[in-house]
């Protein structure tokens, strides 16, 4: 399952908060057609480059798997300087 949302939250030392949800599910339908064209070109290139051990098609499939596996990634960084806190949070849904 590919990621559907990215949630980013930040807080600076002055206490100002900023956060947003990036709706990736809106992006995937737009990218679908260019991706299919890219896959087709990669498949054709694979025929010529596979004997040399270079696999552009398999590489693209692998990148897709990598993207799908990103769900659940979470990064939370909190810093304190002069008793003022700043935060960066990042989560992929």
């Amino acid at each position: 399952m590919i990621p559907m949302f990215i949630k980013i939250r930040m807080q600076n030392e002055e206490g100002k908060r900023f956060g947003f949800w990036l709706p990736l599910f809106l992006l995937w339908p737009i990218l679908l057609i260019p991706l299919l064209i890219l896959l087709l070109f990669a498949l054709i290139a694979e025929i010529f480059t596979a004997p040399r051990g270079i696999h552009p098609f398999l590489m693209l499939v692998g990148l897709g798997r990598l993207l799908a596996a990103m769900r659940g990634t979470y990064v939370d960084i909190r810093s304190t300087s002069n008793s003022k806190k700043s935060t960066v949070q990042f989560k992929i849904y």
Partner: protein
Amino acid sequence: MSEERKRILNMVAEGKISVEEAEKLLNALNSESVNVVNLGKEKKTSAGLKYLRVVVDSKEGDNVNVRIPVALLRAGLKLSALIPPQAYQKINEKMAESGIEMDINSLLKGGDIEQVIETMGELNVDVNSAQGDKVRVFFE
């Protein structure tokens, strides 16, 4: 009674092996079955791992909490297996220059990836510095 046990007892009855030798063989059979059971348990626990966690707590109040899905590590390792063979030698040379003697080709073979992930499941790094900073790397 298993086939192996029957065969050992038959060999004793036929006088082909002594009682002591039969005892040794039966003990070896028992330990082998215990190892198989233990291996199964270990595999089950490592398959249940979902995330690699990196937690840093500094005395000054700086904290880092990172959670990376094991599936992402697996996908990354599988992707790295697609590195062209021409690049292996260069990677090995650069690693050797940095003091790390390894053969990237044998490390990234398909069958070894699962083994690498299983071995990583037992990874548990716990660092406590004299200044009170703590770093933990573990799988959950």
